């Protein structure tokens, strides 16, 4: 039986696995991918030690790090359900089921849908949730980025040398991203910011041809070929029915990353930790693994 199974291999899960393997725990990691949402970031400039690193490069560094420690990894495999039985945790996945003394849930989050007409119809036909992946396909095409936070502005900055015209469509009166990013965006000549603006519809034929928005209560029609949706994240916590969650579906943890169920721990963006940042997720991952170590020691495993 495993001492610990970690579900997820983003910044939180990977850091947890490094701490766990160094404590010589009998460990297994299952994950859909390596790097999670972080792997999809463009420019990362707030991860200590790197003045600049791209998301895909950081994910590669993560992979090298766990490979060096010989972490056992099952990929791609996704958690489907989790239960406590006697003194053990049973984890069900799309490939099978496992028994472990403890489980750390580090399954992260996925992009929030805009929920407007045309979004589903034109997904991958102009509508994208990954600027890092699909951005280069919009060369010489006008695009709209929906959102006003760090992810939205990161997408905009990735596109300034690719796309001739970029609209940032922000529902709030002011962008909420870090000031340093806002300053960069304001300096670029091909970005136009539309605040107080709501997307009503995405339209086109085979591919996107434009969007209808409402700015300050007035309708506007923007002709463009790409819609990049960056309006926040939803925790990947559906499968974890047994643990307590808050109204945002985030798994509630205490200061030592314990969930409401003994033996089940959680860390990173899937939890109610205040900030969804790569470095915070890493720190939480380390905490979770050390809490598991303490838990196993106390229970004489």
């Amino acid at each position: 039986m495993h001492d610990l199974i970690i579900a997820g291999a983003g910044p939180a899960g990977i850091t947890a696995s490094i701490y766990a393997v160094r404590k010589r725990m009998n460990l297994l990691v299952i994950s859909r991918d390596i790097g999670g949402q972080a792997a999809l970031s463009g420019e990362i400039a707030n991860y200590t030690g790197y003045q600049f690193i791209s998301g895909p490069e950081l994910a590669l560094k993560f992979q090298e790090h766990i490979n060096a420690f010989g972490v056992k990894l099952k990929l791609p495999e996704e958690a489907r359900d989790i239960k406590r039985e006697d003194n053990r945790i049973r984890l069900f996945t799309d490939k099978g089921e496992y028994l472990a003394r403890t489980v750390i849930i580090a399954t992260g989050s996925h992009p929030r849908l805009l929920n407007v007409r045309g979004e589903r119809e034109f997904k991958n036909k102009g509508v994208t949730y990954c600027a890092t992946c699909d951005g280069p396909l919009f060369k010489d095409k006008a695009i709209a980025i929906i959102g006003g936070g760090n992810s939205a502005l990161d997408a905009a900055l990735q596109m300034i040398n690719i796309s001739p015209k970029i609209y940032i469509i922000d529902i709030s009166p002011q962008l909420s991203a870090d000031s340093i990013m806002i300053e960069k965006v304001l300096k670029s000549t091909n970005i136009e910011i539309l605040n107080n603006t709501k997307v009503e519809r995405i339209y086109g034929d085979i591919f996107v041809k434009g969007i209808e928005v409402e700015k300050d209560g007035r309708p506007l029609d923007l002709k463009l070929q790409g819609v990049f949706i960056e309006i926040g994240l939803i925790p990947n916590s559906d499968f974890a029915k047994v643990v307590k969650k808050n109204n945002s579906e985030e798994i509630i943890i205490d200061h030592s990353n314990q969930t409401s169920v003994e033996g089940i721990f959680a860390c990173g963006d899937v939890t109610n930790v205040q900030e969804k940042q790569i470095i915070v997720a890493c720190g939480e991952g380390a905490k979770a693994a050390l809490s598991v170590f303490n838990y196993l020691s106390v229970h004489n495993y």
Partner: protein
Amino acid sequence: MNKQVKVYSTHTCPYCKATKQFLKDSGIEFEDIDVSVDQKAAEEMIQKSGQMGVPVLDIEGQIIVGFDKETISKALGP
């Protein structure tokens, strides 16, 4: 017999990297096409797959969108 495999990708896309790594690990030779630098290839990819997401695989004419390990394995055959 080896099937002819093309992978349309961008150099930044993690799913593309995972796809190519999977093919390499399986000992499959493939043509690696970076659509972020080759505009003509990008148009070809969009035309073939009817969509703009990467990666796209062309395995002897069968088009697969995304890193779908099982579908890819099936298309490659035994």
